[in-house]
């Protein structure tokens, strides 16, 4: 009897513990990782060649400047990596901002051996067609399982070309991403203006500033995308700043590509900007507000462009110089539908000349799947490079030489990142839920390949730069510049480009339906 009971209880224990192991959440992922690496190592040991051993060096390329305390954080990272079963060595190289994409091209041209790099979705079709980066699907299967599972498929789709994934996307709210303005909330309250929901409200705010705050410029000439919410929330395959040769209306079932510059949307935007300029709400000279961020932070600017996360990123610098000021996001016509046109922006890609793609992907997988590793890589060593106040992050009191300003936005993850103490928990909550209720436009995943029409695109770019910038700054009267602009666009070949966009769009839709 006792023996049977003993056997039974042992069996039950085994069952229970295996169930526990199977259901373990983040706490168990470390052991899972070890398990994986162990498995891979074992397979290597048994002579199997399918799964590559994860080891060696991962050479990472990022923009900007090396953080001052990089050496220490790097060591801490490598220690933690090997403790977690990934004996990788890391090497960081930083390229200056202005020449970053040039340097990426040069690396590809001369075949230098780097592994991981920051890239952006807007360059994706070029760097893929020029074979700068490699498809990641295979290595995600072997070394990036957690990544694959935790990032929604819409994001993967946006980082793919022809159904192959070319970059690991960030996980941030993406609906209506750049269609925001940010204003001085404290000033709005000072003049008893209601919360801004319509264009009329916004213009009233600008007018009030103009009349009552003589030292301030109501708005610089960079805030255009927010107006799309008013005049036409459309998808622009090419063109970040609220203008591009073609557009698609997401509500249009046929997904027809139209000429953006011939549309009423463009006309309305230009007329609105012109009105703002004539009313003195925008600068008279193009260079008057050379640095809108600095102007905002110093109380010279009352409104600026924004995106979903931007305010949380600006707030620290803002509060330093204007502790009483408030930054408020403005999102016109909040009742209109909310679209997701692009679910990816910043990416981490692997070079086609990389010699350690498995290591690169494993590394990203590692720090994106645990809070601790994420914090280590993004912010540094706790209490040495940064301090945590609850979950708010701060660098007050940290010595200049101990700072670790890393370009964490290149792998941002809304579930894991820390915000500054100036960002309220309610705001964080709302950001995490921002994409809920948003409609995924059926154009999601489409990437226009400009190669077949690159000569026309180059000419169109030149024409656009000449006329659109001035128009969006309010310098031009629509009826005056439009005929010339249109004829130049036509001779640059805009019809050919629209036709090509349509052709690619149709092919995209067809391939989705398969």
């Amino acid at each position, binding site marked *: 009897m006792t023996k049977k009971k003993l056997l039974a209880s042992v069996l039950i224990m085994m069952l229970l513990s295996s169930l526990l192991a199977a259901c373990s959440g983040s706490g168990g992922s470390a052991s899972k990782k070890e398990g994986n690496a162990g498995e891979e190592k074992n397979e290597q040991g048994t002579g199997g060649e399918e799964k590559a051993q994860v080891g060696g060096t991962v050479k990472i390329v990022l923009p900007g400047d090396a953080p001052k305390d990089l050496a220490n954080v790097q060591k801490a990272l490598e220690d933690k990596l090997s403790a977690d079963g990934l004996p990788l060595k890391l090497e960081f190289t930083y390229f200056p901002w202005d020449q970053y994409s040039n340097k990426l091209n040069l690396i590809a041209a001369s075949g230098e051996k780097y592994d991981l790099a920051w890239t952006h979705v807007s360059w994706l079709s070029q760097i893929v067609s020029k074979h700068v980066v490699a498809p990641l699907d295979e290595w995600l299967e072997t070394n990036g399982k957690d990544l694959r599972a935790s990032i929604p498929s819409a994001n993967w789709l946006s980082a793919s070309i022809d159904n192959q994934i070319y970059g690991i996307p960030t996980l941030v709210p993406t609906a209506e991403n750049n269609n925001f303005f940010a204003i001085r909330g404290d000033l709005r309250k000072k003049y008893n203006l209601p919360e801004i929901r319509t264009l009329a409200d916004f213009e009233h705010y600008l007018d009030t500033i103009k009349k009552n705050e003589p030292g301030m410029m109501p708005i610089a000439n960079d805030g255009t995308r927010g107006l799309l919410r008013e005049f036409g929330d459309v998808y622009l395959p090419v063109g970040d700043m609220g203008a591009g040769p073609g557009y698609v209306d997401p509500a249009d079932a046929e997904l027809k590509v139209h000429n953006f510059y011939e549309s009423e949307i463009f006309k309305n935007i230009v007329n609105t900007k012109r009105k703002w300029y004539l009313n003195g709400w925008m600068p008279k000279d193009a*260079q008057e507000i050379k640095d809108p961020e600095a102007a905002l932070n110093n109380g010279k600017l009352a409104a600026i462009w924004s995106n979903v996360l931007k305010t949380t990123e600006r707030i620290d610098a803002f509060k330093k110089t204007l502790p009483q000021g408030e930054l408020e996001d403005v999102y016109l016509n909040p009742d209109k539908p909310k679209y997701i046109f692009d679910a990816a922006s910043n990416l981490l890609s692997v070079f086609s000349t990389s010699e350690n793609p498995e290591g690169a992907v494993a590394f990203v997988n590692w720090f994106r799947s645990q809070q601790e590793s994420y914090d280590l890589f993004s912010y540094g060593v706790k209490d040495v490079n940064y301090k945590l106040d609850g979950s708010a992050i701060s660098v007050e009191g940290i010595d200049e030489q101990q700072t670790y300003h890393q370009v964490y936005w290149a792998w941002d993850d809304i579930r894991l990142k820390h915000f500054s103490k100036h960002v309220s928990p309610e705001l964080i909550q709302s950001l995490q839920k921002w994409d809920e209720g948003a409609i995924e436009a059926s154009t999601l995943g489409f990437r226009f390949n400009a190669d077949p029409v690159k000569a026309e695109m180059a000419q169109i770019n030149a024409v656009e730069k000449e006329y659109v910038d001035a128009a969006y700054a309010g310098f031009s009267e629509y009826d005056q510049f439009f005929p010339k602009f249109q004829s130049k666009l036509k001779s640059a070949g805009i019809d050919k480009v629209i036709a090509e966009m349509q052709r690619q769009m149709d092919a995209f839709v067809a391939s989705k339906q398969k």
Partner: protein
Amino acid sequence: MKGMFKELRSNRWYYLMALPGLLYFLVFCYLPLPGVLIAFKDYNFKDGIFGSPWVGLQNFAFYFQGDYAWRTTFNTLFINANYIVVGTVIAVAFAILLNEIRTSFFRRTYQSLMFLPYFFSAVVVGNFVYLMFSSKYGLMNQFRDLLRLAPVDWYSAPGYWVTILVGVYVWKNTGYAVILYLATIVGIDDELYEAAALDGANRWQSIRHITLPLLVPTITIVTLLAVGKIFYGDFQTIYSIVGDNGLLYETTDVIDTYVFRAVKNVGDVSMPAAVGLYQSICGFLFVLGCNWAVKKMNNDNALF
């Protein structure tokens, strides 16, 4: 062949002296030169320069078929010609002027002060120009205000800008050129001036008949060298002054700024290479012509 060997042998020390220099040019300039083939290919990084597909003149299309080929070429040539002519006249004038100043302390001080703007980076120059010409607080408009003249919207009026660009060029480069011309003047034999004075010539006549003619070889060389690059626009300075202000493109858009703007978002390597080739070939033909003309006048002054 035999003639060449004979020449190399008889002047062997000369050629030996030139060898290290020639080697440098061979290695760093000529060996990479086959890379110009990129202009005729649809370059991608996997196939490299020699493996990428050949597309003939297609990369030239975006520039020559557009509306801007004529305008940008004209602006480039016009602005550069102005730089050469105005720049040289003013620099030579100042070199002569400085040479006439007796006290060496003042002469040296002036020379040093004139040289200062050379050190300003293009970005800073752009800021200074804005300081002068902005419509609200710019110094030029404040000055006009003093004279009871209406202010001008400089940054919306393309007509003034060639003059402004030339002004900036003179401001920035005169010091540098003066050093050069002064070095030549200083090398002129004093005896020539003494002999002229004995013959009753006054200062102006000496300058006209001694200084200037002896400056001509230097001026010729500097000008010919500049002419070779006359199809290359002054990208750094012009871009930092004009930036993305389309209203000024009519007169200030040069080949290089246009190509930069057009290709920036397309990310292509072959298209700029094609235009670069166009600029090289045209400049080269131009200089060959000018050199030939100079040779006709005085064989010694020519470049080659």
